[in-house]
């Protein structure tokens, strides 16, 4: 089961916690909002991704199960 990251841009207020906790996947733009170039989360990053999602003060970082094709 693979996982994907997604941001709810309306909920996100740019705290930037996610980029600190998951720099492998999340960078910040010029205004402090997360940029996710590759949303796929490999298994070895899954724990970090879970922590980043849980740490978001506005719950704007979503860790979703990718649908099996």
């Amino acid at each position, binding site marked *: 089961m693979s996982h994907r990251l997604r941001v709810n841009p309306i909920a996100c207020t740019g705290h930037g916690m996610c980029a600190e906790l998951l720099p492998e996947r999340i960078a910040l733009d010029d*205004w402090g*909002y997360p940029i996710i170039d590759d949303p796929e989360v490999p298994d070895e990053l899954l724990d970090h991704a879970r922590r980043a999602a849980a740490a978001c003060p506005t719950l704007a970082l979503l860790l979703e199960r990718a649908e099996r094709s």
Partner: protein
Amino acid sequence: MTGSRARLLAGIRSDRPLSFDEHLAVHGPLAALEGPAIIEAAGRAGILGRGGAGFPMERKLRAVAERGGRKVVVANGVEAEPMSAKDRVLLASAPHLVLDGVAAAAMAVGAREAIVCVPATAPAVRTAIEDAVRERRDWGRLRVRVAPVPPRYVAGEETALIHHLDGGPLKPTFTPPRPYERGVGRRPTLVQNVETLAHLALVARHGPRWFRQTGRQTSPGTMLVTLGGAVHTPGVIEVPGGTTLADALMLGGGPSEEIDSVVVGGYFGAWLPAPSSLGLALDERELGHHGAAVGAGVIVAMPASSCGVAELARVVSWLAGQSARQCGPCANGLPAIAGALNRIAVGRAERGSRAQLLRWAGMVRNRGACRHPDGVVRLLTSALRTLDEDLRDHELNGPCDACARPPLLATPTPEALAA
């Protein structure tokens, strides 16, 4: 101006809307059809959405039809695109054709409630459609109401419109759920532009083969186009899909002076060079290859005597102001982009400002809950190519003589949009 090929605009008058009897005399009655037959006809006809995205109507109809429970049809005639007038012209001259389309769409998806959204700033349009709703006594089991909506730019976003109709602010919402899953009153909702619905009304009468007798394979049927800028007769025309920009301009009497570029689609469209782009067809595939789109069917001829840089800076500033300011990249990125453009226009740009604009464009694209930032980026990146020389000139030498000309591209004030 509509010519003999007019379908949606057939038989219309300039002084008042067609009455129901006049409408029937032009188009004949709308036969009662089964829902699946209507959806299949829309698919075989290849009707594309005319609100801006060009999405196949069949797929939207099917998505709502497949849902259970009570459903809603929303006809979007708010027409928030400042240079577009086609939806208002259609609603004010052929309201019964739009209502036939609403009825056909409701039959197709199994809806018993329909809402026709009109610009709150256009009382004549509202009256035309309200009178038409009343004039037709027999709506069967369908309840139809008219909702005036402030024509702010995000009214073109389905989720913003639904949010507003449910009593919330006119601002987009995070998806999913998409409107076909949960829309007005949490019910599965079909949102279609009023022109798209009017095409459906004719396909339900005459069938998909008839629809495809004009236009081209990838843009069948006709489309409404709003001509603006330096043309002899600005206004709304109806042309076959795939008509070239040059031919469309000729239907407006041709350019009234020398033109050097065209804005195509609308403010979420593209700025293309003229005359080199005028051979391009109003066709999603063909325009798409050039970073442009049919969009809302807008063509603005920009005269060589106007200043594209000043016009661009003004429009992008306005679009930045039309952001719902819900998403960080859009709320911050668009004002940053507008600021840089304004500094270029007055000759106060920092070094590398055009590279910075491109970097910011990449930074806001695809990062909003809605397509607003993406639309601004499309206009911006196309304009950076088309107006490259003018931008350089302003960077070096500051404002040109044409900068002070009255604007061609409208940027309505907040007061004008509130009414």
